[in-house]
């Protein structure tokens, strides 16, 4: 709206000097606009557009970091190798297993905590918000190292707490969180849930934005807590849940730091920590197979693009955008 006054001011100033028509004022504004965003345009070209294209070219080359002189055209070899490499399938399976477990879990926990913090019955809301958010601020590597000890089969508190219930968790056939390919996914999840704070805060802000009249109306209609949650809260919160879902899935498909700090590229236990990005990092930068690494990188790109595409495709069935802005 007020772009209009802007343009009008520009017109007046420009008019006095050159007397050129209004369209040149618009051109002047546009030039300033491009000038201001030019850092991003340059960065986008240098660090996104060109490298993405170059990655595609690299994926058709046999390019070893150790011997760049011997680079040759490889056609579809790297792609063929990517699809026949058992490690690729291991890493795809590991990534999807963890995504299927962790993504719903983190969404539910983030929503549950936000509902708790938004409850009118809760006292000391500010303090609890602080406590539940704080672990998100802990540097990830430090968090991983702490959890690694908390989940230690013999001396960690988790197993000792489980031991209190009578289950023999600390013994030789106790719960070995980091040696079992299924249990380790729960270990990853615990570590991941420490970072649930951002999604929680976003949910909380969304909840606070829901007009109270809607709840009052529902209450007059005799709707209980569960029914109000299903018919008022969740539909109105769905755009925010969708945002958390998209951001969360993009992040979890690129899961790297936790498995790398705990297990390096070993894939222990039983391939469960060989995530897509771990596989890519090992091939490209540990072994120096840049051509093959570029093919794997594009594979990751395709996986992320397909999944986010699917999510956006489902959005119209369950995400409610009340009023268009």
């Amino acid at each position, binding site marked *: 709206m007020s772009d209009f006054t802007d343009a009008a001011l520009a017109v007046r100033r420009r008019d006095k000097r050159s007397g050129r028509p209004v369209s040149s004022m618009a051109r002047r*504004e546009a030039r*300033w*606009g491009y000038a201001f965003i030019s850092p991003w345009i340059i960065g986008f070209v240098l660090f996104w557009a060109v490298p993405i294209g170059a990655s595609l070219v690299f994926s058709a080359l046999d390019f070893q*970091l150790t011997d760049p002189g011997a680079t040759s055209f490889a056609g579809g070899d790297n792609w063929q190798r990517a699809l026949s490499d058992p490690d690729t399938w291991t890493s795809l399976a590991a990534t999807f297993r963890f995504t299927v477990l962790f993504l719903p879990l983190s969404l539910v926990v983030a929503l549950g905590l936000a509902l708790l913090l938004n409850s009118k019955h809760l006292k000391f809301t500010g303090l609890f918000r602080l406590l539940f958010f704080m672990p998100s601020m802990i540097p990830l590597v430090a968090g991983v*190292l702490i959890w690694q000890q908390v989940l230690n089969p013999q001396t960690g508190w988790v197993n000792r707490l489980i031991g209190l219930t009578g289950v023999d968790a600390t013994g030789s056939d106790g719960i070995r969180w980091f040696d079992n390919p299924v249990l380790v996914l729960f270990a990853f999840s615990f570590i991941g849930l420490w970072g649930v704070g951002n999604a929680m805060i976003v949910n909380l802000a969304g909840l606070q934005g829901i007009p109270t009249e809607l709840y009052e109306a529902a209450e007059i209609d005799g709707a209980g807590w569960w029914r109000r949650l299903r018919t008022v809260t969740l539909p109105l919160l769905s755009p925010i849940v969708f945002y958390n879902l998209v951001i969360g899935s993009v992040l979890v498909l690129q899961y790297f730091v936790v498995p790398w700090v705990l297990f390096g590229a070993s894939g222990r236990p039983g391939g469960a920590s060989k995530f897509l990005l771990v596989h890519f990092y090992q091939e*490209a930068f540990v072994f120096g197979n840049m051509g093959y690494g570029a093919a794997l*990188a594009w594979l990751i790109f395709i996986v992320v693009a397909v999944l986010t595409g699917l999510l956006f495709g489902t959005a119209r069935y369950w995400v409610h955008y009340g009023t268009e802005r």
Partner: protein
Amino acid sequence: MTTEAKPTDAAVRRRRRNLLLSGCTTLGAILLAAIFLMPLGYGAATALKDKDGVSDPNAAILPVTSLTFEYEGEELDVYAVPMPDGEVRELALVQPGREASVFVDPEDPGAGTVEWEGRWRALDPVTGVDPQWGNFEEAWNTIDFMRLMGWTLMYALTTMLFTVVSSAVVAYGFARFRFPGRNLLFGLLMATILLPPAVTLVPKYAVFLQMGWVGTYLPLIVPQLFANAFNVFLLRQYFLTIPRELEEAARIDGAGPIRTFVRVIVPQAFPALTAVSLFHFFYAWNDFFEPLLYLAGNRDIVPIGVGLSYFSGVYNSEPHLILAAALLALALPVAIFLVAQRVFVRGIVVTGVDK
């Protein structure tokens, strides 16, 4: 005092019900928070243990060590000694014997020694809480904490300056100027949030290697001069809320767009700029993948995340030192968060909800 109307039965019942609900909800939240933060408590307790206390599965939860007592120039162990009258006394062992031993009471050494019949080896040693503060000093020195901090701060603060300035400039362009393709370009900018950076890494690495930048901070710092989608989005949302009248007044006074931006917008947007700075600081402090990649082979200059992971690989038999180092690494970010949490929470809300 005003006379209160006698509350009806229903009102009393409702009040009681609300009180009960509040109690249960708050209690539940306390329990949840305790579980959620339990690892921190464990970390703190274990970081203060000595090496034996860490690896013993039956060790007490708190850092304890066996008590000793100095008596006539000798360091004596203290045991819980059951006396013939049924009382258990804490006594220091002066002279161990097979069937009878001599003890002294540490509380009252002047009273002389006590003879006790029985096998002293069957006695339980007395322990007391004894935090090993030295663990932190040892961890500090072993990981060379000051060096890690120095490099991390250098990296975080330099890139913070770069990304905040460049993102603010770009955000102003998107917020206040009309130009062909603006919506398309903004969409493209937002799409980079979803793009996996891995797909750009191989060529970037090859080029940085050619330029001799690998093993230095340049590949990490220079790209920050070109704005970042999250920061641009947050700042643009904020700039849109600044009233236009201020800028118009400046323009009538003859200020060009650059001057308007620096003199009017930047001071007005101070809260948003602070939020973006803080976000970036935490991001940089946490950054792992790219420092690992580009600084590989130059272990002396890695930032704290990578440094910690190297340390834990080498010292995996000394968990108390690893935990002490982890706590050292999280102290500064958590402290900053506690001071600035309001700015923080507001920033998250802007990026998440306003879309």
